[in-house]
């Protein structure tokens, strides 16, 4: 009887532990939803290495879709307007304002994908304590990688609204590589969209940068990518122009649901200086090599081992 009680107690504990882990994933699921479905306004700070920038964000969704405006408050002015998946970036450059268009950017606080399945394959989620962020109570969640091929993330989700308050990327030594988090955050009640427009400088000319990568892909590529690092899958493949290069470059984009890596492949032209070696900047690692007359470059917010594996995974047909 005593033994049975002990067993019950043990099983009970196991059950509780499992439920906690599921709850942790639910917290992240909620954070992903809240960032897209709530209407809010606030200021967040992005910090990478020694550089830090504040950004004012207004996000609205009263069932008519997502509208957001982000204004960079420090240093070079920059303004981002997004509606659904479309993103337009306004950056003043001397006498001009350059307009860039993007698609499908997961922008803070909507860093987490709607579907957690991929992340669950590569990371373990563990709930931590309560920490205050930007005057609000945040529930800490640690996403630790199951292998050495990605960084760990420390996330703070708002206890009341569920929204992501802060995210930090940590290396294997638990050092913060970059972080992004709210300084202040309030929910919006007004449904007015009058804030949804860029501040226009009448004395400047506006130039559209039409660099949306072309969707066309080489019919028969002369390269082959095999044995990519575990947990990553290809999300996109484009032929695009890269500034300073005349010929189009193939860009393959891989993701594990959270971290992403770009793999660039291009034929090495006569007279062009090949790039080789490894370097890093904040959480971003670069790995370049030359193989069979091609330049291969891997770039991503992942450890060095991952970019080097990606670059080495490319082989060429003779």
């Amino acid at each position, binding site marked *: 009887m005593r033994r049975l009680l002990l067993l019950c107690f043990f099983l009970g504990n196991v059950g509780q532990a499992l439920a906690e882990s599921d709850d942790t994933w639910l917290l992240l699921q909620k954070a992903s939803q809240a960032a897209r479905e709530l209407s809010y306004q606030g200021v967040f700070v*992005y910090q*990478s290495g020694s*550089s830090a*920038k504040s*950004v004012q964000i207004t996000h609205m969704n009263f069932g008519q879709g997502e*509208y957001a405006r*982000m204004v*960079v408050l420090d240093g*070079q002015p*920059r303004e*981002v*307007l997004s*509606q*659904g998946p*479309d993103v*337009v970036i306004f*950056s003043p*450059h001397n006498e001009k304002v*350059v*307009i*860039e*268009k993007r698609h499908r*950017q997961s922008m803070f606080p909507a860093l987490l*994908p709607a579907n957690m399945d991929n992340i669950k394959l590569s990371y373990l989620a563990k709930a931590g304590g309560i920490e205050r962020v930007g005057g609000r109570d945040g529930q800490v969640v640690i996403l630790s990688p199951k292998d050495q091929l990605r960084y760990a993330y420390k996330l703070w989700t708002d206890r009341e609204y569920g929204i992501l308050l802060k*995210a930090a990327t940590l290396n294997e030594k638990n050092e913060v590589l970059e972080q992004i988090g709210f300084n202040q955050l309030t929910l919006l009640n007004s449904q007015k969209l009058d804030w949804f427009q*860029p501040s*226009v400088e*009448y004395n400047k*000319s*506006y*130039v*559209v*940068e*039409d*660099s949306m*990568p072309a969707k066309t892909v080489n019919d028969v590529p002369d390269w082959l990518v095999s044995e990519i690092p575990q947990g990553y899958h290809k999300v996109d493949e484009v032929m*695009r122009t*890269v*500034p300073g*290069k005349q010929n189009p470059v193939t*860009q393959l*984009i891989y*993701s594990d649901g*959270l971290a*992403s890596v*770009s793999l660039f492949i291009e034929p090495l032209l006569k*007279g062009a*200086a*090949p*790039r*080789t*070696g*490894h*370097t890093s900047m*904040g959480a*971003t690692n670069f790995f*370049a090599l*030359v193989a069979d007359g091609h330049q291969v470059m891997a*770039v*991503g917010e992942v450890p060095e081992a991952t970019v080097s594996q990606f670059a080495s995974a490319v082989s060429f047909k003779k």
Partner: protein
Amino acid sequence: MKDKISALMDDEIPMDESDHLMIAISSESEVSDCWSTYHLIGDVMRGNPMLSHDFTERLMAKIGEEPTVLAPKAKRSFFNMSMLLSVAASMAAVTFVGWMVLQQQVQPNGVAPIEIANNIPTEYLLAHQSMASSSAAYYIQPASFTQASSK
């Protein structure tokens, strides 16, 4: 003119379902007036110099305005010439040795490789950030990136 902008937006700039630019433009007539003077140039910000459409005309006009300078050629003495020649000869020798050394390091395609550790490939970083779905950094890049891209 407004139609033209609209056409540009529709044809050259595929902005499926995204009318926020147009909202911004049409919300104030002053802005739309201003907009009609905008020059739409593709792929300008990164790498390529940003030139307005009438840049060539303006440059040629400026050159036309420049006075032509007519100056007599200075005579060079034989002494100076021989000095120059000897300097040139020694320079050539140094260059030759340097060239010999370089030849040993050169890659098959004729150019020495660049170590990216000494030279961060910002163009690839920008290309990565513009496409990668989880990049928080793109719209708040450090100023140095923006400067590098507008060179």
